[in-house]
Structures are given as structure tokens and as C-alpha cells.
């Protein structure tokens, strides 16, 4: 059996020379964040908010290095002006992995609107969006997205769907379990 996409993503970061990884944590990103944190060749930076990542990534590229940015879909809403302003104006490469909420089996109603808006919002500011729902597609999109971003100066986001990472259960899936909350 092939390794999970998080293991492959870290491997691909190494293969493509990613030196800085900026992230705002999400449960679906935990294994990838831990792998980057433990890697002495990668500077893993936990950010206070997602738009910092757009600055961080662009600054790294200015200095001759490649960065990747990790966030949950709700954080994409925070990045819009930064992407439009910095990445589009300057034609900076951008590579983001976004773990989805509000999309498939979501049990937190607050997540649904931004989950639905994530892909169209990214596209509206010029980001190429790959939506993936399987391990195989995730790995392929990450590999090809890294190539596109750093060879073609493209802005790329790989959206990891909830069919792959699962829907987080904040409140019970069935009414009887609500008493445990």
C-alpha cells in the first residue's frame, strides 16, 4: 500500500527543494506539519494568520528559495487581498495545500459557506485550483502543482477534500450523542 498523501507531500517538498513551510494548523494537516517540523532542512513557520504566508512565500522566492503554505479552507478567506496584490501583481509563484472543511459531511454549519466559496474565491484571484478526493490524485496534484508553481511562476492551490481527510465531528453525528458534548 502506498504511503498516505501527507508522507508523499513531505517527500515531494524535499524533491522540489522546498525550504520554508508556513502554516496555520488544521487537523487534516497534522502529519505533514509534524514531518516538516521534524525536518532540519525545512524551516517550518507557524503563522498567526494565513495571509502572512503569502508574504512569507513571496519573500522566500525573492531571496531565491521555494516555500509552501498550508492552511484550512476557512483561512483561504484571509489570503484574498494578499494573493491578488502581491502574487498576481508581481507574478510570484505560490504553492498552497488547503485542507477542506464545509464541503462533504461537514457537521459544523459555520464552516459550510467558506468551504463552498474556497475554490471560486481562489480562482477569482488567479490561483489554479486542483480539487482532489483520493490519495493518488492528491499526490499527483501536489507533484504537478509544485512543478507549475516554481517553473511557470504560477499560483497553485491543492484542495484536499473531506472525502479523503474525513469530516470532523464537533457535535454528534446522531442526535442521541449530543448529550456527550
Amino acid at each position, binding site marked *: 500500500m502506498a504511503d498516505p498523501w501527507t508522507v508523499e507531500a513531505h517527500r515531494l517538498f524535499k524533491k522540489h527543494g522546498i*525550504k520554508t513551510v508556513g502554516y496555520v494548523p488544521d487537523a487534516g494537516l497534522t502529519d505533514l506539519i509534524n514531518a516538516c517540523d521534524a525536518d532540519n532542512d525545512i524551516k517550518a*513557520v507557524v503563522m498567526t494568520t494565513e495571509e502572512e*504566508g503569502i*508574504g512569507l512565500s513571496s519573500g522566500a522566492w*525573492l531571496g531565491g528559495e521555494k516555500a509552501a503554505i498550508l492552511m484550512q479552507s476557512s483561512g483561504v478567506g484571509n489570503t484574498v487581498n494578499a494573493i491578488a496584490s502581491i502574487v498576481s501583481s508581481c507574478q510570484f509563484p505560490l504553492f498552497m495545500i488547503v485542507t477542506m472543511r464545509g464541503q462533504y459531511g461537514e457537521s459544523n454549519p459555520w464552516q459550510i459557506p467558506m468551504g463552498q466559496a474556497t475554490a471560486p474565491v481562489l480562482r477569482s484571484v488567479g490561483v489554479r485550483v486542483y480539487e482532489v478526493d483520493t490519495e493518488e490524485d492528491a499526490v499527483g496534484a501536489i507533484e504537478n502543482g509544485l512543478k507549475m508553481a516554481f517553473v511557470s511562476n504560477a499560483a497553485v492551490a491543492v484542495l484536499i477534500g473531506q472525502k479523503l481527510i474525513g469530516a470532523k465531528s464537533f457535535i454528534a453525528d446522531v442526535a442521541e450523542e449530543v448529550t456527550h458534548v
Partner: protein
Amino acid sequence: MVSNSRPTREDYYRALSDNLPEETLVVTSLGNASYLWATVRDAPENFYLEDAMGLALPLALGLAVAQPNREVVVVEGDGGLLMHMGGLVTVGAVAPNNLTILLIQNGVHAASGGQALTNAELDIADIARAMGLKHAENITSVKEFQSGLVPALKGDGPTLLALATEPDLDAVIPPAMLDPVVTKRRFMEAVGAPRYVSIFFGGGMLSE
């Protein structure tokens, strides 16, 4: 207290230019922070971030991490700092020793007409220290600025110098259009950033 006792942005910029080693990388934020610096000292080592208010610090942080052997100076305003205060927390946490933040503290949104900031009286040096910056100082004169700047550029940062500054509400006309792509390319050539070139063989077909 004399109301116009604070130095101007230009006073600080002239002193910065006089004390700045040539190879220093400089990131300036939007408005006169960039227009005036391009007028005082345009150089390939400058990156003018002409929008994305508040994100000069994260950008300079990424640059400082990528270029650990060069000093990076970033000029941000107090309005920009308030907009993304978290960026300073991240600088404090990553703590690159080659990063110096020059914080123009004029108490207003200068580029939009001089409207008062949400809070113009903050002790920014105190805030910066609380956020983990190694050195931070509130500066009220050009002489103090020079005294603070010289050690800051010796790789013992991160340092923040909060510069009490008279607001400059008239836009400075820069010597040339600060084209974002040209600025980026010129900067990357100056730092010797690698280029990634796609090379196609076999009639241009990708092998995979």
C-alpha cells in the same frame, strides 16, 4: 512639548542611506515609504511592496530566512503594524538575527490623507520586546536613530526601531514607475536567486 519636534521620514531616510552597507536588502511598504526611498536611494537591493498593507513584515521575514547571510531592513508604518500585528509575533518567534524593522510611527494613515490611527500612542518598543524581538527601541531623533541602526545591522537581531516621525501627507513622486515585476526581477538578480528554466527535449513533449 513642541509639536513639530519629530524628524521627518526624509530625515530618517537620509541617515539610513548614509549608514547602510551596499549589500543590505531593503523592503519598503506602500506609499511614501516606497516612493521616498526610491527617490533617496533607488537600488536593485530594494523591494517596494506597493500594496498589501501590513504584509511587509512577513515578506521581509521570508526573505531574511532565505538570505541568512545578508542583512534585511524592512520599513513598515504604525498603521501597517496595527493591521497585521500578528506578523510581529511571527518575527519574534522565528527570530532571524539578520532582520531590522524600522517602524515609522507617525500616528496617522498618511497615504490616505492623514486620518488618525486606532491608537497613535502605543509604546511599540515595549510591544516588540513582549513579542520576542531581541532589541527594540523608541527613537525620537536622527542622532538616536544612527546610534541604534549601526549595531542593528551587525547580525544581532531581530531589532525594531520605532521612529517617531512627522506625518508626510503629500505623495512623493518617485523617479520612475515602480513596476512590480521589474522590481522583483531586478531584486532577484541582485541577490543571485536561482532561475528555474523549463527545458523541453523531444519536440517539446514532456516525458511524463
